[in-house]
């Protein structure tokens, strides 16, 4: 092999694979890993992708504020968006609000920031978490900030597509409302994923292996992509460059 990569770099290339050329890909606030993925995709397989990166000046194609971004999303103008969750459950529900009871939470977080709309309206939403554990991937979230599946009769052109973690990639079956394992990252066993996932998921036979970042991808990522990322996420770019993330 002759090259090594960090797990964040594998998350970035796995998310970059979801970006398609000539589509509109948007990245929300406080999302350095998806931002890096979108920028990397534009340098590789998706040169004509339109990128919207909240917090960026260069990748913010609007005249006014973030309201214009939400308006575009609500009109169905976003093909790919990225979301995460404090908790994510096996039905694709996201919790960005509280751990514990809503009125007496053990921990309170920042809230949904539009994800209750974006999860419905972005055509594909790629989910990601940098921690793969049973406290994150739970049987049922404590608070539904955004649901994986909407009640019948609700207008919902979009929804979850994949869930990328430090161990594997799941894909979401919107009809069944369940995750199916798509691929295990190199060196990760199925048993480990099962042991560290609090929800049930479908397992194909055989299970694929997530492609590793290629030397070309790593060179672009560590060079021009981090340089661009530093506009919005200087600290993350510095730490990833130094291998400290």
């Amino acid at each position, binding site marked *: 092999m002759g090259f090594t990569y960090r797990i964040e770099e594998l998350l970035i290339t796995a998310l970059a694979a979801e970006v398609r050329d000539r589509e509109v890909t948007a990245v929300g606030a406080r999302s350095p890993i998806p931002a890096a993925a979108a920028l990397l995709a534009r340098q590789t397989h998706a040169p004509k992708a339109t990128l919207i990166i909240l917090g960026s000046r260069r990748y913010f194609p609007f005249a006014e504020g973030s309201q214009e971004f939400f308006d575009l999303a609500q009109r169905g103008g976003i093909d790919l968006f990225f979301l995460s969750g404090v908790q994510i459950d096996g039905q694709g529900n996201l919790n960005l609000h509280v751990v514990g009871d809503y009125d007496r939470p053990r921990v309170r977080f920042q809230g949904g920031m539009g994800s209750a*709309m974006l999860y419905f309206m972005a055509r594909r939403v790629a989910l990601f978490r940098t921690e793969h554990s049973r406290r994150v991937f739970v049987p049922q979230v404590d608070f539904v900030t955004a649901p994986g599946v909407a009640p019948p009769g609700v207008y919902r052109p979009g929804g979850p597509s994949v869930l990328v973690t430090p161990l594997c990639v799941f894909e979401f079956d919107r009809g069944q409302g369940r995750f199916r394992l798509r691929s295990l990252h190199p060196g990760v066993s199925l048993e480990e994923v099962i042991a560290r996932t609090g929800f049930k998921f479908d397992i194909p036979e055989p299970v694929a292996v997530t492609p590793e970042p290629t030397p070309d991808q790593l060179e672009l990522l560590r060079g021009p992509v981090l340089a661009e990322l530093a506009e919005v996420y200087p600290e993350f770019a510095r730490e990833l460059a130094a291998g400290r993330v």
Partner: protein
Amino acid sequence: MLAGLQAGALGVPFMPVRGFLGTDYLRVRPDFRVIENPYNPGEPVVVVPAIRPDIALIHGFRADRAGKVLSDPTQDAGLMARASRFTVVTVEEVDDRPIDRGPGFIPAIYIGAVAVIPGGARPGACPGYYDRDEAEIKAYCELARTEAGFAGYLDRYVLTRASAGP
């Protein structure tokens, strides 16, 4: 919240929003209601009430002598100003160069008062003037874990005159 401010800015009582159905917002926010789309019978739609703040506090880049303001075009300061009954803008600087229409422009008609407070967005960022002070924000988060720490922070940075400077 943006949808509520949009309704406030438009002067209409509520705003329909996409999504939100099947979420716990509807459980903890009784003011978020589900109505039937009057133009598509049978389709549920969530509505949120208009937000009409009495006062909006905004930090902008610069004001001119006519009270026009240049603010961060990626934020929603103009929307807040239009939704609110009275808007106070603090700015990094005021000078004689008239501000033209363009990104981040807020017309004087939406602004009640302007005050020059250099460093007014600290420890947050004011693009073109200063970046987020990450160390300061971390220090605040640490102090805010306890009542005494929070009170100490207020004493040091908010309640003393030294906090007025950059």
